[in-house]
């Protein structure tokens, strides 16, 4: 999802970040990824935790150096204190798939078709 891959989320910076801060964060993340630090392999977004690799960091850095793209992405960063927390509820009101129900067919006359 493009919205979750917003460069500001990938670099974990706010829309007000300076060019220097972007450069510094990029180098820091690349070094940490090179070292295999677990904390660098994921980033927090409004859509939950997402995986991060060196290519995503470089792409984010490139995008934020382009003033037009930077402005576009900045408009898509809601205040981080409003983001939903990462703890996903075990059941959501909208959950509609229940594959484990197939187990309930064991022992029924057509169990072999389950």
């Amino acid at each position: 999802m493009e919205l979750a891959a917003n460069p500001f989320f990938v670099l974990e910076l706010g829309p007000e970040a300076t060019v220097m801060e972007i450069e510094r964060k990029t180098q820091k993340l690349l070094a940490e990824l090179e070292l295999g630090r677990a904390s660098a392999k994921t980033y927090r977004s409004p859509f939950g935790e997402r995986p991060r690799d060196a290519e995503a960091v470089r792409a984010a850095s490139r995008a934020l150096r382009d003033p037009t793209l930077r402005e576009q992405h900045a408009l898509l960063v809601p205040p981080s204190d409003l983001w939903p927390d990462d703890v996903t509820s075990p059941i959501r009101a909208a959950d509609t798939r229940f594959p484990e129900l197939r187990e309930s067919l064991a022992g029924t006359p057509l169990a072999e078709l389950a």
Partner: protein
Amino acid sequence: MIPYGIIALIAVKALMSARSNPTPEHPNLRQASNDRAVAMIMWAFIAPMIVLLPLLSWWLILVSLLLFLLLYFPTFVATRFAIPRGKPELARLLGKAAFWHWRDDRPGGAIAFALLALANRKNADVEKLSDEYAQLLLKAKVGAGGVLLSSALLAHRRGDRERARVLLETGALLSPKLGSTIGLRWMREHAVTQLVADGELLRAARIDLDTTPRGALLVRIARELSPGWDGIDESGRPQWRRDLPRMQLARRMDRSVRRRMIARERSKLTNVGPYARLFRALDVRTGAGRPRLLVPELASATQRAVLALALAQKQGVADDASLAHLGEILDEAHDEASDEVQRWLIEAAREVTKDVPRALRFRSESFVLHEAFDHGESALDQLFQLCERLANADDGVLPLSAELESWATLRILYERALADSGDVLDSLPFSAVRDVVWNRGATNFNGGHRELGVMMFAFLLEEGLKRDDDSVIDAMIKNLRL
């Protein structure tokens, strides 16, 4: 003193009446009444002899009991003994002997029993027997449910699980107008379980409640979890004005007792494990404090849209108010966003709302959500294509099992198109199938596949009633001689 004369008279009367007066309850009544007459004669003449056998010698008690079970309770013996112990030929004979209960469904039903027994057989002759039963099935000329069940079991044996499911779901949707159908309750239980497992709640809600207790529990939960299900006949849509009072009463009864029935069946379950998440979803959805999507105001419409999508993904969107709220926020952001951001918003909306119940989708007025939702175009397109092919096909009839396979494809594609649109009263899928089913129904009925013809007419009547299609209703009532 057993009144043999009277019983024989009733049997002869039943035979003669069948020959002169076919009725809609059983289209091929001649055959059915013969079966019932045979069963009646068996009860009248053979039962007393079996009862008297033990008087001759004590060991004849066992023989008498065995004969009694085999002749009078063949289905019971087949399901409790022949099928679990892998005795396909015995199961088939017992299926054929079920004169009283299964009537015309016996040819297909007997093969279904044999195939079920085959699944429990370890011998090397399984494949050979399976081929023999497939050949026998091609020769079946009457019935519907038994042939569908046998075809599903054969499809499963050759590894085509998807086809087996299509056939079973078609069997589960059989009209009660066809009378007793072998394995109907099993097929319904199986189909509703598979549909709920896959999140096809609207399709599961359309299955009849006359199934096993566990199957009925799942149908009721599917109806409870399908937004708007209960308002279908009260929503200002066609009022089903010519609907049978019996059907209206059944719907009202279902609505009024549903939650109590769910609670009762739930308390009876011995293994709650597989149902745990479903029950929690039900509690969340129907509980007093159910979650509603509420997105705080922000200066930027696009930032608010991202937040709304994030919250929607987290909480889920399961009610009209939440979906409308999300739609308004997305539309506002869409109006002031660049082309690329618009595309991102629609893509994110598609992903976030993939679990939104289909019954809610068609009610959304949001432009962005309309773009994001698949309104069943793919299933509907396939349905139109299939109907076009069938309309151009020859007028002749194929063997019953082949015609039933063809009907199953059409029927389930119709269910998919209807469920994808989210509106069980959507008229587009019905307009696609209406004429083709009418023609094929008549062709099948006149070509000897009477149960299949009746099945198609009953489908047209039921769906026509929901859409106030007068010409279909009048013709089908005449066809079914209601």
